């Protein structure tokens, strides 16, 4: 099924939109997934920080407790070093834990408990160490033996362990989710890529198919064009052949008509001559003879026969004139046309110059405006065409107007040369526009002498030159004859050959 250009535009637009949607989907999903990854990452970082803070605090507390125990056992000041260091860092560590847990209001209670426990523990540690320094190690050990400190420490430891566990869990969840997001991204990218590949593939196929169809259509148009040109050339040749055929026919007919005409005229003369002896015989009878035979014979010999012979003669003469006119035209048609390069401007100027005198006499003027494409045609035929038309413009001028003649030329897009000759003469009535080109037909008042063969002749010549002649006329403004001729008669001659 051929693709219409509208269908092609619609389908390509749809493909582009589908591709765009896929692309937007991929990009949107990717951005969303990256955002989410970022979120997960931050959550993991935060969880790790929480966990780290809890671990640090627990370690510090354990360090402090170990230092206290070691001192109480040995009373060696060296054991108080880690204790001192831990005590100094615990506040900061606690604040970190408090800070990382601040966003979780549900932990507020536990954090407050943690603070109390830490304070209690630190107080117990400081108290025992102070007692030991004063030498009252037993009292310090008693305090330790109450297990209150240990219990507090156990609560602290379990609280911090919970925080650490929760942190671990959150890290694990974050990693799992991260992996899921990566998988989702991969799947979305894959689907999007498939869609885009499908769209591009479809578009490429469509473009290829459309281009191929365009090529095929162009080829078809070219072939049609060539065929058309060939057909036009063929028809032109056919027309010219038909034209020639008619002229040959006319030529033969006129010749064959001439032969009997010679007889009619010849024997009419013989009859005429034969009247002399008859007249002589009739004259032998007296003029006032009453014999009806003599009267009738005299009537016949002196009036009837000469009258009949006269009519036969005038009719044959007229017929001879007509035959000669046809012969003239057919002879023109049989003339071998000789294509030569013609300077149209010069040819028209010389044709106009031939009637210049009459134009000047009437006070009018002639204007020539012609293109100068190279034309190859028969000079004589073209001269006769123009001469005939210009002669008509003079012969059938309007009595009240100075003669104005415009000769314009142009070349049509198909190469034909069009020459229009406009006069301001008396014009031709509409019903006679075709008639004037017919043999022996004339238009209007026959006050101007003519045989009625000029335009018939012109039309035959124009057709012989691969063209034609038409006219436009308005009795008020005059007549325009439009002569078209083929620009190159040699081409037509080649086609004919």
């Amino acid at each position: 099924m051929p693709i219409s250009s509208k269908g092609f535009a619609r389908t390509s637009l749809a493909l582009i939109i589908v591709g765009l949607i896929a692309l937007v989907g991929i990009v949107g999903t990717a951005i969303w997934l990256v955002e989410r990854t970022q979120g997960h990452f931050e959550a993991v970082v935060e969880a790790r920080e929480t966990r780290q803070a809890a671990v640090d605090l627990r370690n510090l507390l354990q360090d402090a407790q170990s230092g206290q125990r070691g001192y109480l056992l040995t009373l060696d000041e060296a054991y108080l070093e880690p204790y001192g260091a831990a005590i100094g860092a615990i506040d900061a560590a606690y604040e970190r834990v408090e800070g990382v847990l601040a966003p979780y209001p549900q932990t507020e209670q536990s954090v407050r408990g943690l603070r109390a426990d830490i304070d209690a523990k630190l107080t117990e540690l400081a108290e025992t160490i102070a007692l030991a320094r004063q030498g009252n190690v037993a009292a310090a050990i008693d305090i330790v033996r109450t297990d209150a400190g240990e219990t507090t420490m156990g609560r602290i430891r379990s609280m911090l362990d919970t925080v650490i566990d929760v942190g671990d869990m959150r890290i694990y969840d974050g990693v799992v989710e991260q992996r899921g997001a990566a998988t989702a991204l991969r799947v979305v990218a894959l689907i999007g890529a498939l869609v885009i590949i499908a769209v591009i593939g479809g578009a490429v196929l469509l473009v290829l198919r459309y281009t191929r169809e365009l090529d095929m259509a162009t080829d078809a148009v070219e072939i049609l064009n060539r065929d058309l040109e060939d057909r036009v050339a063929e028809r032109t040749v056919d027309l010219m052949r038909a034209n020639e055929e008619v002229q040959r026919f006319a030529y033969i007919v006129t010749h064959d008509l001439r032969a009997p005409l010679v007889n009619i005229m010849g024997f009419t003369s013989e009859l005429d001559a034969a009247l002399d002896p008859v007249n002589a015989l009739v004259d032998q009878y007296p003029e006032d003879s009453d014999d009806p035979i003599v009267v009738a014979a005299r009537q016949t010999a002196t009036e009837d026969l000469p009258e009949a012979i006269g009519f036969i003669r005038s009719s044959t003469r007229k017929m001879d004139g007509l035959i000669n006119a046809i012969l003239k035209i057919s002879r023109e048609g049989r003339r071998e046309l000789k294509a030569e390069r013609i300077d149209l401007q010069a040819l028209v100027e010389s044709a106009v110059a031939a009637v210049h005198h009459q134009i000047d006499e009437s006070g009018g003027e002639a204007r020539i405006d012609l293109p100068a494409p190279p034309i190859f045609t028969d000079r004589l035929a073209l001269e006769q065409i123009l001469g005939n038309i210009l002669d008509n413009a003079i012969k059938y001028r309007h009595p009240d107007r100075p003669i104005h003649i415009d000769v314009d030329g142009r070349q049509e897009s198909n190469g034909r040369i069009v020459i229009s000759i406009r006069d301001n003469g008396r014009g031709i009535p509409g019903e006679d526009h075709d008639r004037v080109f017919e043999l022996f037909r004339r238009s209007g008042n026959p006050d101007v002498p003519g045989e009625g063969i000029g335009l018939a002749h012109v039309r035959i010549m124009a057709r012989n030159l691969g063209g034609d002649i038409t006219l436009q006329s308005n009795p008020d403004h005059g007549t325009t004859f439009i002569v078209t001729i083929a620009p190159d008669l040699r081409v037509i001659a080649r086609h004919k050959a």
Partner: protein
Amino acid sequence: MAIDPRPVTIIMVEDDEGHARLIEKNIRRAGVNNEIIPFTSGNGALTYLFGEDGSGEVSAHRHLLILLDLNLPDTTGVAILEKVKANQHTKRTPVVVLTTTDDEREIQRCYDLGANVYITKPVDYDGFANAIRQLGLFFSVMQVPETA
């Protein structure tokens, strides 16, 4: 002509009997009394000129003058002219082409083939009669060779 022991015979090939009659009348009016043998078809004339065998020996030692119309019903005058001028027995026989055809090419062709005179029949009778009479006068003075 009367003094010539072998008077010239005029062969007239003309399919139109009216024309043939008018030509004969006018030749006689010019005072030519030679025998005129009319043929209305090309084949009749060819048989007379070249015999049944077509060799042309029958024309040997004849004194002939041919008046030829080009438009004939069975063959063309040009074909007859060609044969006459190609045959060794008739090639010196003068041929006068008398026809209605006034086509340049036809005239040239006839002269090329060896026609001695080409005359177009004028349509007006006076011109026609005059031309024939002139032709008759021309016949009375022209020398016709004996055919070989």
